[in-house]
């Protein structure tokens, strides 16, 4: 143990503890800006400097480990003036249109200026140039005028996601964060995962909003607007309204959406169950008939583009099943339209997602199997919360209401799609049944749960040792798939039968469309919420869902039928690692 004093308060901490953590233990919050608990400290802002007795220069609290016997002071005159000067320097460069900024009220720079009691900016900057806003991407907008170069987006894009779509360019005060060749994120390898928007402390990175288009559709009397919500949204939307992280708000969410004016409120969890039937059948068929193994999941659109760009040779291993969002979209304009006798061209299909990549997915040209654009608009959790706030709807005040039929019913297997490992767990619950015609008794497959980057499990199905792996976060996915690629190359086969990949750390509960200010701990709590809901539901296996049985009876015949293939399955492309554009079809 190491003993030190912080502002004369004694603390005892483990070796390797940073000054920041030690100060917290002593009851002092040292202000930070570039620091984020999920990222390696880079020390770019210098806000967290403190004085250490006997040291010639100030130390960065975020990246300096406490040394035994140190006397640390966090609020000396030198420390205080230095911090204020740094904040004033940042503000001298910053685009300060706070009231109209997307981050107003949730901005870490704004909070810091308040915390440090900044009253004036001494330094005038008359040469402030307006930089071009990059809105080339369908998912993400980048406003360099707001950027404070904390490099968090770079770190998450490079170190955690290993996409490397963003990089520093130029030097000194000209430095900007941009994509390769500065051609815009929409023309880059960016996979639209949106983690950069979650980590950005200010309003420099955010989703491209479709709020206005959705309002227009709702207000158009001629349109029938249906809405679906992804599994993870019910575990995070509450945070936007000040509720405890991990609050489960299913019924309130339905009620609020209904009050916003959606004509039918369904649930993506329904098509999550459907995905399991399609994908599970595919896995079983490939195992039985000696098809391509491992089967790799395809519901995360960030992952799909990542695969198309960096692992195109694995395209034929991906399940051809569409994501639940796109299955829902296709069915909303076919099955539902026919059932309700509404002309499909009058249906507007909206989805609420914890995800920015879903905005990209819904506009892929092949996602039109209904004969129309299957999903018209995707809103992130943050966007739907903004709509609700504008409409004067506070989620906390909502009653619990049910979803509409026939695409609202779901099982526990559907809801855990939102957490890493959930798709695999749900698939195993049904694959067991499809292979043996018997039910898996213990449906809690805990080996694939949790925040470990790469997880493995093996279940014995009548002698068949089914080995699966789960990776979340694209860096982990890259590690796992490098291994699989090696195995396929050297041994002709992989040790795994099935692999689940989610682009975002934590799975969809950690998606790029989640509320601002999240960290890994919060992602984990949301995941736990989904597992709790799973446990509480009457049905926990997708094939038990009565509405799913009904849709096969009424419309799709059976899993992987011709009709199901037409509406619910897709294909993949090879993409350029220069600009992410399609090179050719698989």
């Amino acid at each position, binding site marked *: 143990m190491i003993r030190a004093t912080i502002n004369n308060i004694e603390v005892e901490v483990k070796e390797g503890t940073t000054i920041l953590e030690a100060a917290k233990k002593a009851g002092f919050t040292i202000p930070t800006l570039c620091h984020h608990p999920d990222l390696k*400290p*880079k*020390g*770019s*802002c*210098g*806000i967290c*400097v403190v004085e250490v007795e006997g040291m010639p*220069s*100030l130390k*960065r609290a975020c*990246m300096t480990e406490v040394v035994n016997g140190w006397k640390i002071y966090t609020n000396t005159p*030198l420390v205080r*003036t*230095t911090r204020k*000067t*740094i904040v004033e*320097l*940042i503000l*001298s*460069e910053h685009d300060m249109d706070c009231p109209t900024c997307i981050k107003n009220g949730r901005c870490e720079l704004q909070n810091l200026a308040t915390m440090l009691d900044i009253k004036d900016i*001494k*330094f*005038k*900057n*008359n*040469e402030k140039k307006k930089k071009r806003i990059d809105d080339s991407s369908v998912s993400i907008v980048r406003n360099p005028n707001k950027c*404070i*170069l904390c*490099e968090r987006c770079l770190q998450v894009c490079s170190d955690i996601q290993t996409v490397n779509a963003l990089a*520093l360019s*130029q*030097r*000194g*005060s*000209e*430095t900007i964060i941009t994509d390769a060749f500065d051609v815009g994120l929409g023309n880059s390898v960016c996979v639209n995962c949106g983690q950069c928007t979650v980590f950005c402390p200010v309003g420099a990175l955010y989703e491209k909003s479709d709020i206005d288009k959705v309002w227009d559709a709702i207000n158009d009397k001629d349109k029938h607007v249906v809405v679906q919500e992804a599994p993870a949204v019910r575990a995070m939307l509450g945070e936007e309204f000040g509720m405890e992280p991990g609050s489960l708000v299913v019924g309130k969410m339905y009620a609020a959406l209904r009050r916003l004016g959606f004509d039918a409120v369904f649930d993506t969890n329904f098509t999550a169950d459907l995905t399991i039937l399609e994908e599970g059948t595919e896995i079983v068929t490939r195992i039985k008939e000696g098809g391509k193994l491992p089967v790799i999941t395809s519901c995360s659109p960030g992952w799909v583009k990542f695969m198309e760009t960096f692992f195109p040779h694995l395209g034929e291993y991906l399940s051809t099943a569409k994501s639940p969002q796109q299955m829902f979209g296709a069915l909303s304009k076919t099955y539902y339209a026919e059932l309700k006798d509404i002309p499909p061209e009058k249906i507007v299909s909206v989805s609420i997602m914890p995800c920015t990549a879903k905005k990209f997915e819904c506009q892929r040209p092949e996602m039109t199997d209904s004969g129309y654009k299957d999903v018209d608009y995707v809103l992130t959790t943050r966007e739907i919360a903004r709509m609700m706030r504008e409409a004067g709807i506070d989620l906390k005040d909502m009653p619990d209401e049910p979803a509409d039929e026939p695409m609202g019913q779901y099982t526990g297997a559907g809801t855990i799609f939102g957490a890493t490992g959930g798709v695999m767990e749900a698939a195993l619950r049904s694959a067991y049944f499809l292979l043996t015609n018997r039910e898996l008794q213990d449906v809690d497959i805990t080996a694939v749960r949790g925040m470990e980057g790469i997880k493995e499990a093996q279940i014995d199905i009548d002698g068949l040792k089914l080995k699966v792996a789960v990776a979340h976060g694209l860096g982990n996915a890259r590690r796992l798939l490098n291994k699989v690629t090696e195995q396929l190359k050297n041994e002709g086969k992989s040790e795994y039968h099935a692999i689940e990949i989610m682009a975002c750390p934590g799975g969809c509960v950690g998606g790029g469309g989640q509320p601002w200010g999240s960290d890994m701990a919060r992602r984990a709590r949301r995941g736990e919420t989904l597992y709790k809901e799973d446990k509480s539901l009457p049905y926990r296996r997708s094939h038990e869902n009565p509405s799913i049985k009904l849709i096969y009876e009424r419309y799709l015949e059976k899993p992987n039928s011709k009709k199901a293939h037409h509406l619910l399955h897709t294909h993949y492309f090879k993409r350029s690692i220069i600009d992410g554009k399609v090179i050719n079809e698989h």
Partner: protein
Amino acid sequence: MNIVRNHILISIDAGTIMAGARAVEDALVKELIKYGLDKEVSVLETGSLGITGRGVVLVVYPEGIYYANVIVKDVPELVEEHLLKGRPLKRLILTEAPKRTVITKEKTGLLKEQPRIVLKNCGFINPENIDEYIAAGGYEAIAKVLHNMSPEDVVNEVKASGLMGRGGAGFPTGLKWEFAIKTPGDEKFVICNADEGEPGTFKDRLILEGDPHKLIEGMLIAGYAIKANTGFVYIRGEYGLSIERIEKAIADARAYGLLGKNILDSNFSFDIFVKKGAGAYVCGEETALIESLEGKRGHPRNKPPFPINAGLWGKPTLVNNVETLANIPEIIRNGADWYRGYGTDKCPGTKVYTILGHVQTPGLIEAEMGTTLKEIIFEYGGGIKDGKAFKGALIGGAAGAFIGPEMLDVKMDFVNLREYAAALGSGAILVMNEDTDMVDMLKSVLHFFKHESCGHCVPCRLGTARLVEIIDNIALSRGKKEDIDNLFDITNAMKAASFCPLGQSVSLPVSSALKYFRDEFMARVF
């Protein structure tokens, strides 16, 4: 057998090449053939003769007469007068040429003698000829080390010599080597920092151009001492001739078995590779240099860990400046006690300076530590040009300090200058006469920092940008009184919270300029 009666040493360095040294050399050879003197007079290439800004410079031995500003048209007259008729050509003689002595301090009759340790061979031997280096005692030190000394002996000898890092910070070299030898690791690296970027500094370039083998020998000894087998010379990309010469020297040393496996039949293997920098000043900072060497953007790393513990590719890495390493062979050859015979107690040895600005004889000199600034400017540098008065100097490049006339008697060494809140830094001495506008000087220093800030940390990135705006206003006499306070507010924050020495050092030129020349600034703010 030929008896050569005259040797002409012509300086072939980056500066003289631009002035036409190669053409002058060709003309000399042709002219000598014309008169049938080519057997009696030899023309030899060498590195810098220590004189810069004077066109093509050459020296004729045995008379030791320096000629400067020689152009091709002068050659027939020079050969006819001096070499045929034996009458030195007065109009081209450089009367104020700096005197030089080799280590022995023998007097040869010019202006001011220099004790030459680092520059011993510069301007004497042909840097492109390994045999000349060997004939001058080269590679004796590595032989001694490999056969008579343990790595610990070498480290102890360097420690005993009191050598301090010549890159600017003055950290004790022996101590650094001791850390390196004590750090466990099966693979270690030696990096020579030849990314000389401090404005006004070109000593490393002239060492590399004038005596590249000395650096190789220094790196070999360092490699042996810390048990490394690979060395890198990270060299400024603009230093074309230095790169050419160090690369040739490495190839020649390899051919002689002085680099590679089992050097001189010992168990020690070592090789050196050259990596060109791309022109960022910050890459002279050792951790940014390492990032760049790894192929990344040149951003500094956090310390600790220091490179000595986790440097290049995370391995223990010793980073030393060119001049530091060039001191090593002589220290080993002659011993630490001999070395301590030069300089001061706390700062033994010599320092290589580049003197430039408004001096009579700008150039490269080597002087003992503890030499006063007055001696350097007025004796080595020949005083102020055009009969003007001395106003001030900028010592140590942009990251250095301005000083006024009251500082002329200060003894120049790492320790002493610290007491005056100045720094020896890179050894650049920029001399300014009475006509110099100090606001303008500080302005160009601050523009330099704005341009060279890497952009990683807020204090430096935005601090330099705001400093430039403020000083530009003051220079235009549009400044306000609070601008002076703002200069200090910004540089104080930069000193306290900049990520690396680049930003931290900006406060030195600002505070020193305002200390010695405050009136000039106050006259332009309202």
